[in-house]
């Protein structure tokens, strides 16, 4: 992987490296050997069993071979191949979800834990603090004021803070997601913290995010 900027990467394009007169199987084998491990890791990261990871990786390369004619070089070859792998992943999730709905009944919490689609599962977590009504009222009020304070932040600042707090991303990851530099991310987070500190000094002691 060649670093182009703080958040941009350019993947190697083996198609460009094909030599004149090279046989098709030799060319595709080089593609296969270059990208099989990262595609395999992509599925492995998503908690598929090893055998299924191999199957999904193989399916990905069959799709790559059959659809290489649609590659228009608008994106690097690696990104295009990654897109195929991600499509295989989403199709697999969709099929599994369909099979599960047709089969046994599962709780929403269990489903979210299994399929790794965290935001939809977490949204249904039970609020344990609701057992104390007074504290709950205070929490709701504090939460309202905090929400207003967050909404008053500039957009980029608010997004950086959400990625940092809600998704626990590093500065480098936030920079990749927001397509800005790490220094910009640090600046946004510092200013967000300062502004919230001014508005919420009566409610919090620790403003570290």
């Amino acid at each position, binding site marked *: 992987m060649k670093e182009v900027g703080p958040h941009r990467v350019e993947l190697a394009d083996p198609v460009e490296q094909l030599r004149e007169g090279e046989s*098709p199987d030799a060319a595709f084998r080089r593609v296969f050997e270059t990208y099989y491990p990262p595609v395999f890791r992509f599925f492995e990261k998503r908690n598929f069993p090893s055998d299924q990871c191999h199957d999904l990786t193989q399916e990905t390369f069959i799709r790559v071979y059959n659809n290489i004619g649609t590659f228009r070089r608008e994106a690097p070859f690696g990104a295009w191949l*990654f897109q195929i792998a991600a499509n295989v992943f989403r199709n697999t999730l969709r099929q599994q979800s369909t099979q599960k709905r047709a089969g046994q009944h599962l709780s929403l919490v269990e489903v979210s834990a299994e399929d790794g689609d965290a935001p939809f599962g977490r949204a249904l977590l039970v609020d344990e603090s609701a057992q104390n009504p007074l504290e709950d009222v205070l929490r709701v009020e504090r939460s309202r004021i905090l929400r207003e304070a967050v909404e008053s932040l500039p957009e980029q600042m608010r997004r950086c803070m959400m990625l940092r707090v809600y998704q626990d991303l590093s500065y480098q990851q936030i920079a990749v997601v927001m397509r800005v530099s790490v220094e910009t991310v640090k600046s946004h987070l510092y200013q967000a913290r300062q502004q919230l500190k001014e508005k919420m000094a009566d409610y919090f002691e620790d403003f570290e995010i």
Partner: protein
Amino acid sequence: MAVSNLRDELKEVFREAAAESSGRGSEHLELEELVAYHCGQRSAADEQRIQDHLVLCESCTEMLLDLAAFPDLECKESQELSTGELSARWALISKELKFPAEAPDTTRKKEGWRLWNIPVLLPAYMPYAIAATLLVAAVGLFVWVAQLRRENRRLSAQVLETERRAAQNNEQLATDRRNQNETDKSLEDARRRLEQQREESRKELEKRDVEIAELRRPPRVASGQGGAPNPAVNVSTAELYPSEVVRGGQDSAKTVEISRSARQLRLTLNSKPRGDYASYTLDILNQGGVAVWTGRGLHKNGQGNFTVTVPLRMLPEGEYRLKLYGAQAGGREALDEYLMRVQYR
């Protein structure tokens, strides 16, 4: 009441926001859109929308981060695939894939192998380079054509100007030629007139010479021999008497009618008898008193009269006074005077 940590409270707020977002049925980003966003191929508005989704969607964010890290993805539980395993996997997949046979002919090899129906040997920027080249060529061609048109217009204008000048020159030449012809004609007319005048002058001179010769010839006096003068063609005759013996005296002129075809006038002058002179002289004076003709060396004929032939050219119509003198030594003596009125018919 102050609580300990802002981060926990914020996380809860964001979690509720994410729950609301998922409750509104927010779909995951399309992978194509995610890849385009990662490659910076989306508009600013699209980027804002995608970022708004990413901050609340862990799945899409994770996908984007994996895409950014690809192919150097890391997985904690992953084990390195061995070369043998890769070969085994290749053996499996190569059975399912139907590779085209290698091209046996050299022509295909020269053109380069195109496994997936794409120009694999061309770099990604080649279409843009070709398009830019074509654009530059088109612009250059346009400029060249414009220059040719301008040059063509200039040359056409020059040709028209040259033709116009040639036409003017031809017209001028024709005018000069016409003037030359007119001048030649005028010169010819002048020459002809001069020739005519010269001929007339020559004829006039000849005529004058004849007259001079006629005048120089001694007058034929018939009285000397006492016979009648020989009749002459175109000669008119008239007889005059001295005015003092004519009725009416000095005021009575004899009218002499002469044919217009006559050339000469023969006058017979009757004279009073008196002594003889050696010779006589006759002057013919017009009304202004100018002598139009003079005859010298006259002699009396047998009847004591004088016969004189006068050219009529010298006598236009009018009254004339004729004076006869007798010549004597040292001078002359006026003898008789005659009055005559000439009329032509």
